[in-house]
């Protein structure tokens, strides 16, 4: 058990902290939450700045365009950028946090060379086309079909709740390539260019009033077969790699952000008199414990994954990610419930930042696998209970 940092890691932290200190004050103001093209430009500019300073894809392998940094350096990066209030990954979420790592793990040399550098330079945005109207939790029932025609696939079907689809260049798409095979066997993972003829994006409005996700219609879209990542009909396995990144580490930075929010909440409560309410105060204290421990759990999971990678494993985050995701998504919702009680009537103002966050937090127990699905995974895959119904 060791949480101490090496001298090199401490150095890395100091340099990063200094760079953030110099860089952040010069950033332009953040665009409004619902102006997606402006947000894309803003998020990409930030990614470019990270890239130019040598901080992009830190923990990706060097031959995937990354810096081959240790998992610990990656955690330091997350901690410091969040602590300094640096911009959130935003539109780069899918590319950086799960499509990119999936391509790094499963792609060919040519695929890595084609797709990874533009993600790191903030030039191309990815989205995730897994869910369909009739295939959410039951992802393996997806129906979007890809029919092989010479060197191409011809894809027809539709996807839903596709975050950032409006501004994305690429989509990690799950399609059925063998309708006759058992459900989990006939699926493939394909990189779809969003500007291909036959792709139509129709924004969906979220309950927060924003248009962060969309429906995507695919009408005989032609995609070169070389865009398939992993073997044909092996996409279910590849998608599990994607999902384990999504649940494993993709939310790590947000834990740090939640701790900052909590401290700001405490300060607000003291300023507006709500701090005198012992029940509310203790709720904030308990949340502080939860987020502290969640960050420790990230360190624990990362240590386990790094060890597995050193001893011949694939370094993909394990089912422990479900333990983290389940509790994190609940804690985040409790945080914004507490925020509403700190704000009082002001929490009814939809333009209040914390109110917007409260609305957005409602998705956390649904997206990336619902809480019920995470519990199923924990019960069956970690605890070894019989398959449930």
């Amino acid at each position, binding site marked *: 058990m060791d*949480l101490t940092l090496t001298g090199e890691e401490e150095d890395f932290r100091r340099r990063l902290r200094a760079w953030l200190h110099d860089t952040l004050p010069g950033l332009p103001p953040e665009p409004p939450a619902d102006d997606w093209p402006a947000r894309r430009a803003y998020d990409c500019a930030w990614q470019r700045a990270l890239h130019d300073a040598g901080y992009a894809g830190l923990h990706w392998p060097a031959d995937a365009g990354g810096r081959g940094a240790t998992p610990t350096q990656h955690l330091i990066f997350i901690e410091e950028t969040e602590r300094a209030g640096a911009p959130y990954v935003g539109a780069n979420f899918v590319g950086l946090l799960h499509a990119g790592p999936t391509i790094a793990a499963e792609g060919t040399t040519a695929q890595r060379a084609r797709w990874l550098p533009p993600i790191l330079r903030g030039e191309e945005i990815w989205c995730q086309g897994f869910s369909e109207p009739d295939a959410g939790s039951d992802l393996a029932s997806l129906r979007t079909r890809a029919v092989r025609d010479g060197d191409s696939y011809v894809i027809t079907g539709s996807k839903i709740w596709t975050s950032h689809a409006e501004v994305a260049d690429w989509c990690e798409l799950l399609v059925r390539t063998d309708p006759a095979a058992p459900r989990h066997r006939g699926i493939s993972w394909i990189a779809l260019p969003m500007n291909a003829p036959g792709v139509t994006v129709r924004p969906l409005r979220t309950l927060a009033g924003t248009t962060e996700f969309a429906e995507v219609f695919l009408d005989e879209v032609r995609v070169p077969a070389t865009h398939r990542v992993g073997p044909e009909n092996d996409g279910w396995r590849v998608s599990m790699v994607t999902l384990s990144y999504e649940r494993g580490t993709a939310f790590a930075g947000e834990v740090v952000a939640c701790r900052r929010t909590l401290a700001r909440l405490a300060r607000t409560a003291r300023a507006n008199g709500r701090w005198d309410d012992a029940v509310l105060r203790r709720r904030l*204290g*308990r949340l502080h414990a939860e987020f502290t421990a969640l960050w420790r759990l990230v*360190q624990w999971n990362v240590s386990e994954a790094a060890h597995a990678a050193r001893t011949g494993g694939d370094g993909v985050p394990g089912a422990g990610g479900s333990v983290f995701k389940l509790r994190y998504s609940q804690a985040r919702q409790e945080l914004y419930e507490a925020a509403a009680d700190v704000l009082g009537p002001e929490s009814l103002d939809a333009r*209040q930042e914390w109110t917007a966050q409260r609305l957005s937090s409602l998705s956390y127990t649904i997206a990336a696998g619902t809480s019920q699905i995470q519990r199923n995974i924990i019960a069956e895959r970690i605890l070894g209970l019989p398959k449930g119904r």
Partner: protein
Amino acid sequence: MDFRLTDDQRALQAGMRSLLAARHPRERLRALADSPPPAGPRAPDRALWRALGEAGFFSLRLAEKDGGVGLGMPEAVLLFEEAGRALLPGPLVATHLAAGLVEGAAEGNCVVTALDGPGAAEHLASAEAVLLLDGPAARLLHTGAGGAPRALRARPVRCVDPTTPLHLVRQLPRAPDGGVPGLPADAARMRREAALLTAAQQLGSAFRTVELAVSHARQRAQFGRPVGGFQAVQHLCAEMLVRAELARAAVYAASLSVEPDEPAEIAAAKLLADSAAVRNARDCLQVHGGLGFTWESDVHLHLKRAWLRLRQWQSSADSEELLANTLIRDASHIPGRHPANDATDVLDAENVTA
């Protein structure tokens, strides 16, 4: 950074587990729980106490030059976690803290219990010495075995945990003038260490009840299948594991805390370990159905001991208050580029409209 246990730590943990399996097997736990009241307060088994002493349980953190093992808090936490798993009774934390301060404590030749202000003291009648924490002061009361209840005017109660004799003390005796020599450690530090070691025991119990629930759910069949195949049961078990793992991350991290004056990590550890132990025991009971409500199942022993530890050293309310106050302190130096979101601005806006 490698948060996982080292090979030495694993070996230490395994050694303690097998020692307890041999010296404090389930039959012994049950014999303690089943001997009907009023058998009177049961003393810790002195032979077992000495065996723990020989294994270094009490002297673990004492420097080698003082006859100790010279290991640290992380190792102590692992041993106390095992003690919690096995529901080992006795004032383990107090005797561990007293090693080096009370003669014989390090070797397991005497039993030391503790009182953190007026309240409940476990195993008081068999203790040779009592560690008294009174505000910022810590002192030792040497009474000799059997003398403590009278010296403290303690009232025996039948503890809800059948394996722990308990006394209630209304008032601590006044400290003699001029202080008590020979007690270098300060009370605040002892409280923090005691809270962490108690949290470690809660953690062990929390993981043990996950195992009990899962193994019962695999075996018990209803409607022609194991009840563990029912999602409602699976989800109870999954939440139990999440609580235990979160508590483990907190307890282990707190044991590594390099800054001894940073009590927030320890408060978080105690808070989360307390709820993991108590809530896991309740859910475990639920998974066991009617059997869980019988004396013969071990589940209630975990729940009752968890209730006892919940009230020892740092209550949940105390932990929560401490953590809340840390937040205010942290808030004064949050950097950020979002002044528009800051509390002060919210209030300014309010003032404008008012």
